[in-house]
């Protein structure tokens, strides 16, 4: 059998006979005239992020950092959560008393399935789209942690919120290139529009998403 790789590359080169041999990829112009940065104030961005996350029917709340444990406890009692899986690097100051924490040191999917919810931080957030960026690191946790349990409580600090997609992707670029970090973008709870193109929340991923924005002075 001929080498498929060599054959496909040869077919590509013959299909592109019209492209001058001297042309380099960078010679094909790409106009980046769209917004790559956002000049809105921190306050405006936090407000926009909160509103956009809320549009996805996630629970969202702006709280001062010292009141995080209280807000987390409230979210747990509202949803009836008693045991939370947490990533290794979760700050000690976040979790409230009275909730059992299970540190994720390689929990299996079946073990995660028996835990009420997950409590994590994140790597960045996008105001324009109401998106949380997870990078598999010490705050975000492994991918399965925020996927298998039915509830995800995510703490976003105000300084992690960017206006544009471009800024948030740039914030995790080094983690991707240097550590091959898996990146997950989360915008609201899981949903489906497969029945009559009507959005229904809560399919295979967590059915409930709570976002707590830790904001000095909130």
């Amino acid at each position, binding site marked *: 059998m001929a080498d*498929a*790789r060599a054959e*496909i*590359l040869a*077919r*590509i080169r*013959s*299909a*592109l006979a019209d492209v001058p041999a001297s*042309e380099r*990829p960078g010679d*094909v112009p*790409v*106009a980046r*005239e*769209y917004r*790559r940065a956002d000049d809105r104030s921190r306050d405006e961005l936090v407000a926009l992020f909160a509103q956009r996350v809320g*549009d996805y029917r996630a629970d969202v709340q702006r709280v001062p950092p010292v009141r995080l444990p209280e807000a987390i406890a409230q979210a747990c009692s509202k949803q009836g959560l008693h045991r939370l899986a947490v990533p290794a690097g979760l700050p000690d100051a976040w979790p409230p008393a009275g909730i059992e924490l299970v540190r994720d040191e*390689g929990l299996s999917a*079946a073990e995660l*399935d028996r835990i009420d919810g997950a409590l994590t931080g994140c790597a960045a957030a*996008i105001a324009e*789209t*109401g*998106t949380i960026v997870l990078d*598999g690191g010490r705050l975000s946790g*492994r*991918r*399965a942690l925020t*996927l*298998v349990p039915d509830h995800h409580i995510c703490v976003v600090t105000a300084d992690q919120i960017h206006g*544009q*997609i*471009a800024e948030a*992707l740039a914030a995790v670029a080094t983690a*991707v290139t240097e550590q*091959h970090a*898996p*990146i*997950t*973008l*989360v*915008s609201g*709870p*899981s*949903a*489906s*529009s*497969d*029945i*009559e*193109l*009507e*959005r*229904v929340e*809560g*399919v*295979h*991923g*967590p059915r409930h998403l709570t976002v707590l924005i830790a904001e000095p002075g909130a």
Partner: protein
Amino acid sequence: MTPSEHPSFPVAARTALADTQLRHNLAHATHSIRDKRAAVVAELPDWEQLREAGRGLKERVMRHLDDHLLEFEAAVTAAGGTVHWARDGEACNRIVADIVAAQGVDEVVKVKSLTTEETELNQALARRGIRAWETDLAQLIIQLADDQPSHVLVPAIHKNRTQIRDLFRARLPDAPADLTDDPERLVQVARAHLRRLFLEAKVGISGANFGIAETGTVCVVESEGNGRMCTTLPEVLISVMGIEKVVPAWQDLEVFLALLPRSSTAERMNPYTSLWTGVCDGDGPREFHLVLLDNGRTNVLADQVGRQALYCIRCSACLNVCPVYERTGGHAYDSVYPGPIGAILTPLLSDLRDHRSLPYASSLCGACYEVCPVKINIPEVLVHLRDRVTSEPPPDRHGARGRVDPERLAMQAVARVFASRRAYESAQRAARRGQGPFVRNGSVRQLPGPLGAWTSARDLPPVAPQSFRDWWRSTHPENG
């Protein structure tokens, strides 16, 4: 595949048009998504700049596809992935089946992927004794109904909630007997049904929305979480990616992730986007295989006008705005890729001779071009393909060459008449005298004899009682 296996679009469309339930379901779905899309697009002041950047990036990739693929392959390999190349669907399916078989399992979970539908991977796996579970809700509906997808994004768009409820009751043993047609209840049944499979599957199979040459990252964009399940929990992950899905750099995602969700599901962002780079110790699959698929894409690349069809990011906005798709649905296109993009991509990917009617499945209104997030000029490619259809000989199963083409002869006669004012005016007079018996309610519904083929799917306005020239001559005798 022989030409006879593909019914022509007008013939296939007739079945769809006769199904009033189908037309109702389609009109409801396409109109609601159309309005939502327009609203989220209008929210961005720089939408046109994003489209132009998306188009430019895709043009850059296609003109240097070999360079980008080699860079991508090297980056995936460096990150611990294994890259396979498949020249056609059969080769792709064999590669995937061999990897699955090597794991000693007979069950895999799958994320919805048009590319693996194109290669008919599930059927190929079944022949090797491997059951592929579709985990996307719409794909599950299609699989349970033994049906064919009819939309790129919402494969079961032709089914309404009651039809889906009835299907779940009949085909899912764990569906409750009192199941209603409330979409929330239906979604919960699917969740319960697939949960065990996700937690136990050893092998996951996905497609890819984007592959980033610079970093070797693969991107899957989805809503339900089944994509995250399939790409995270199994020990082995196999992703099948068309060679045209590569994009140059990590930074370029900022363009495509802005364009795709707003164009497809009319959301600011889809619920979940997974981006993984090879394998990651302790997080996700321990083995990652990427299959790069040609399967006709290099044919598309070789057509300088048609090349832009490879820019497609499978958003389906062109389906939702198309006046033809809205009425016929996806099945009439007889392809994994229906709608306006399918009308150009299908003949270019396979063989124009097998799909001669598809470039005509359009009124050339241009709505598809206006909404396309990467500015594929679909009307331009349709006209180009129509030109190829008329200039390349039709397939002839009887082996006779140079057969007389009546349409071609008729068009040549029309060209002669239109070239001469005298011939044109006397033809007008003759038509005016002769058309009487064929005019019904102000239009010609059925022309006589062989001309009837033209009016089988079109109405023709009758020749006016007085032409503009006649009117001018009668009112301006001094200028006559």
